[in-house]
């Protein structure tokens, strides 16, 4: 059966017009009658015991309607890792202690935002300041202060992987090197700062509109922290202006909005500022990665030993997953017969890190890919050739973890090598110019059920109507990446109807079928897409019968759905409009609507993911040897995302990834001194601007993954990883400076050149 043309088409996001004309409604756009405005009081100390909180002056301020502290709450520890309750270490408002500058201590709601903020300033908190630690090394040192009583020594979690006899393999290696890499903490810098609006609902129920990637997770954890049945809490995801992993947990303002709405009987809204986001928001993990690799003289990898320290900040957040995934990505891309990984997740008094696009891969691959480039230099092997010699191939397994059933890594490497003129450019040195390479791989959704959901990982409902239209209901969350479009493409392809005939309702926990774990881990296209396929096929079963009746078909016939028609595949003239077919089915069902549920849960797919994406990137730079300024001149990317469902959306992900990778490589870092962020504005926290974007050429390496819908794999996160190591290599190629630390600022380049 051939693939319907809408699969792989270039379709601008449905709803893009509403977004660019300002009609699309984001949480902060909403105002409800009688709405109150919330504000949060945060800890000024990195580590302190709360001795006393006096809210009387705040309460007395005219216009203030409610003030809450940890004492007003149920004091239940919560977190996304419901599977391992010990990991759940956060409170919606601080209980007894604060663990980072910005830890939420109290909240106020008032008639207007200014009054709410002034009231916060009137809350008196008496702290006993405790000694604090701001780096993983300090936190693990003998005698370091304990941040969480349950974890003396501050080692929150460890994760080990080992296979293949590492020590023995290293003894056989003819070439061994060991390097240490340091990567900083950076911000998601999503366009829309977090915002949440709650309204009381009849019977003590509550509705929350929130800028989230995970309405279901928020619903469940909100119910738990409010002490309500899950079904009393309705979470709705309006339009969301990006998340990149930063909006996938229950957060304090979501709780406080709902809690105070229930207490006051009025809607309550909280909206964070950019400064709040940069100073206190979730962020990507800073890590120290020590990597040791052993090879034969002709460049065959024999063993790798990776030791990683992750800076948790004051709470675990999604750290357990990060700790696992860094180890996973450390073993990806190449055939590594012997591998050892030790990941240690360490509490500090920095603002907590959590999931961020690539989740462990940007760090692991910065270390791994930079190191491989150093190996190539020392062994005198071209870095792309070295990669090809070791590249994973379809069918390869990472022992005990996962199998890559499709893998276009080698093809991607060959493609960027040929398209970029690599061989010639590496051979013919031009002053100040350089070219570098790196690879990447990522998961297409996670398999591990850390949230411990009792439901399917994703679900949807499809309804079809006699006017030829359909309605797709899904809890999957489009946060700007375009999944609302992609899921409708999949449904349009299956039902053979025009995509504009599909209404979509998404991300409403009271209306869309339970459940969907949310948008993270690049899971939506593969998982929610498979659920759509499941539901659509059930609908098609209901409709096929109509044709068999109408034309008295022989059992061997197949029914096709295309061009808004339902027809006998072998005799296309025998058929009818899609709507007419629904009408006839409806008659036959004596009025029972045509509706079907679809589900997907990855089963027997190892520990990580049902499918891996792969890619390779070559980057050309020019380095000013006197100022250290690096200009990225051209990017070439080849990417195996399986069968792209929407090539324009895949390109959008690629461009966004280059943008993020560029910042990670050259300019972004939350400069944090004693737990305080010093550059909490976009003036001082430097994400690249449009003018910094280099020209970029991209090539799809199409593989047809057996697990993905129509063969699709992920495109949202993998590509964020290769940019930094490829730029690092290009800088070395240009001026001979290697940087084991990000970002590679002009200062670091000049230091490397011995000019500073």
């Amino acid at each position: 059966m051939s693939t319907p043309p809408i699969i792989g088409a270039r379709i601008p996001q449905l709803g893009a017009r509403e977004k660019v004309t300002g009609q699309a409604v984001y949480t902060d756009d909403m105002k409800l009658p009688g709405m109150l405005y919330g504000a949060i009081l945060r800890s000024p100390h990195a580590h302190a015991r709360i001795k006393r909180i006096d809210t009387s002056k705040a309460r007395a301020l005219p216009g203030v309607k409610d003030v809450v502290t940890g004492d007003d709450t149920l004091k239940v520890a919560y977190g996304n890792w419901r599977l391992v309750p010990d990991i759940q270490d956060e409170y919606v408002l601080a209980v007894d202690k604060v663990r980072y500058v910005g830890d939420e201590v109290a909240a106020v709601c008032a008639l207007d935002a200014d009054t709410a903020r002034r009231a916060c300033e009137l809350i008196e908190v008496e702290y006993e300041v405790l000694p604090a630690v701001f780096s993983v090394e300090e936190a693990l040192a003998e005698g370091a202060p304990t941040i969480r009583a349950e974890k003396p020594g501050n080692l929150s979690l460890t994760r080990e992987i080992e296979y293949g006899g590492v020590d023995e393999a290293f003894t056989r290696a003819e070439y061994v090197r060991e390097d240490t890499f340091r990567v900083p903490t950076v911000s998601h810098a999503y366009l829309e700062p977090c915002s949440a609006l709650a309204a009381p609902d009849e019977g003590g129920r509550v509705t929350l509109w929130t800028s989230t990637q995970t309405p279901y997770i928020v619903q469940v954890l909100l119910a738990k922290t409010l002490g309500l049945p899950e079904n009393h809490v309705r979470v709705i995801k309006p339009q969301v202006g990006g998340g990149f992993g930063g909006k996938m947990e229950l957060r304090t303002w979501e709780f406080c909005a709902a809690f105070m709405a229930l207490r006051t009987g009025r809607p309550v809204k909280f909206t964070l500022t950019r400064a709040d986001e940069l100073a206190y928001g979730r962020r990507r993990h800073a890590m120290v990665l020590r990597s040791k690799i052993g090879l034969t003289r002709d460049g065959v990898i024999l063993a790798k030993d990776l030791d990683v320290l992750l800076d948790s900040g004051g709470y675990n957040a999604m750290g357990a997953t990060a700790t696992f995934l860094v180890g996973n990505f450390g073993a990806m891309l190449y055939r590594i017969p012997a591998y050892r990984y030790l990941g240690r997740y360490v509490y500090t008094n920095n603002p907590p890190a959590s999931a961020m696009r690539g989740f462990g891969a940007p760090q692991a691959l910065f270390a791994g890919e930079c190191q491989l480039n150093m190996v190539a230099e020392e062994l005198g092997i071209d870095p792309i050739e070295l990669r090809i010699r070791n590249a994973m191939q379809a069918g390869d397994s990472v022992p005990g973890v996962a199998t890559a059933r499709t893998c276009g890594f080698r093809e991607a490497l060959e493609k960027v090598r040929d398209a970029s003129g690599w061989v010639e450019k590496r051979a013919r040195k031009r002053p100040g110019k350089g070219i570098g390479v790196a690879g990447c791989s990522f998961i297409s959704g996670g398999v591990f059920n850390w949230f411990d959901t009792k439901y399917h990982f994703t679900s949807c409902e499809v309804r079809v109507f006699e006017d030829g239209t359909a309605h797709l209901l899904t809890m999957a969350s489009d946060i700007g990446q375009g999944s609302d479009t992609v899921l409708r493409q999949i449904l349009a392809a299956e039902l053979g109807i025009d995509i504009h005939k599909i209404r979509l309702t998404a991300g409403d926990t009271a209306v869309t079928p339970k459940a969907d774990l949310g948008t993270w881990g690049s899971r939506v296209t593969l998982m929610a897409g498979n659920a759509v396929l499941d539901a659509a096929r059930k609908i098609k079963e209901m409709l096929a019968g109509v044709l068999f009746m109408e034309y008295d078909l022989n059992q061997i016939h197949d029914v096709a759905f295309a061009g808004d028609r339902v027809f006998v595949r072998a005799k296309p003239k025998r058929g009818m409009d899609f709507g007419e077919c629904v009408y006839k089915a409806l008659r036959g069902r004596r009025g029972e609507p045509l509706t079907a549920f679809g589900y997907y849960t990855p089963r027997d797919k190892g520990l990580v993911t049902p499918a891996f994406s792969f890619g390779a990137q070559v980057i050309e730079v020019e380095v000013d040897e006197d100022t250290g300024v690096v200009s990225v001149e051209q990017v070439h990317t080849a990417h195996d995302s399986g069968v792209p469902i929407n090539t324009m959306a895949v390109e959008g992900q690629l461009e966004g990834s280059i943008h993020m990778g560029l910042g990670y490589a050259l300019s972004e870092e939350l400069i944090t001194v004693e737990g305080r962020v010093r550059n909490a504005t976009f003036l001082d926290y430097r994400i690249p601007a449009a003018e910094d974007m280099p020209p970029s050429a991209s090539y799809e390496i199409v593989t047809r993954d057996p697990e993905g819908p129509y063969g699709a794999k992920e495109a949202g996160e993998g590509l964020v990883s290769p940019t930094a190591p490829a730029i690092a290599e290009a800088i070395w190629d240009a001026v001979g400076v290697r940087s084991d630390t990000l970002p590679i600022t002009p200062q670091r380049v000049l230091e490397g050149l011995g000019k500073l």
Partner: protein
Amino acid sequence: MTAPLSFDVHRPRALTEALDLLDEYGATARVIAGGTDLLPKLRNGRLSPEHLVSLGRVGELDGIEETGDGALVIGAATRLFDVQRHPLVRKRLPALHHACSVMATVQIRNMGTVAGNLANGSPCADTSAPLLVYGATLEVARRDGHREIPVGAFHKGPGSVDLASGELIVAIRVPPVPAGSGSAYQRISARSRVDMAAAGVAGLVTLDGDGRVAEARIGLSAVSPTPTRCPEAESLLTGQVPDAPLLERAAREAAEEAKPIDDVRATAAYRRHVVFVMANRVLTTCVARASAGAGGGTP
């Protein structure tokens, strides 16, 4: 923390009307030109005026004029973009032209003004170093008077300038550039093409008939509490033949004269180093332009 945004906006159509308003409201009023510096400060609560006096409709402040003596007078409401594209600015004041082409972004340059850039008081202001080397003066008016301030005396410290309440910059006056001169400006924003400068260097070199330096001026921004000249480096050059080793020595001297600090944008050591690099490049361009007999062209 975001402060309440509550103020009255006045949109006078004549300079006298603007001056009357500023006089009436005194310290509770602020001038707003493009608003690109002012609005962020209002939003983050660093300024909370009760009255904004907008220059947007004061037509007489918009535009660039050449006076009889060959000076260019840039009206206070002239947009950076209009300064950049003006043919006489491009021809005679390439350092200013370049500053107005590379600072900020297209959108900001379409709103912002040179007067606002200076009055904001930032030591990083990109137009400050070029205007320093061109010897520009600010024409300042109040309801009952008028005075002139050399650009070099205008900045008092980070964020502080020589303007009293009730006063308004009417124009920036740039005197004619001496014959036989070449000028240039370079700035570096080490982290992104759209960024406040980590350092800026402007130069103007005038050669005499023998190819010796009759006069040299070097202006620095972003590397000391106020935009500043480099008297030691300038005197090194005066009377000398400007060969490459001399220019390099002068550039080193200029770097010594800078008083940079460490901040989140760059370290002091980095700033000092790039002052040297850029001063060397700027002086080389100045000399080339002066020898070519043209002040013009982009750097």
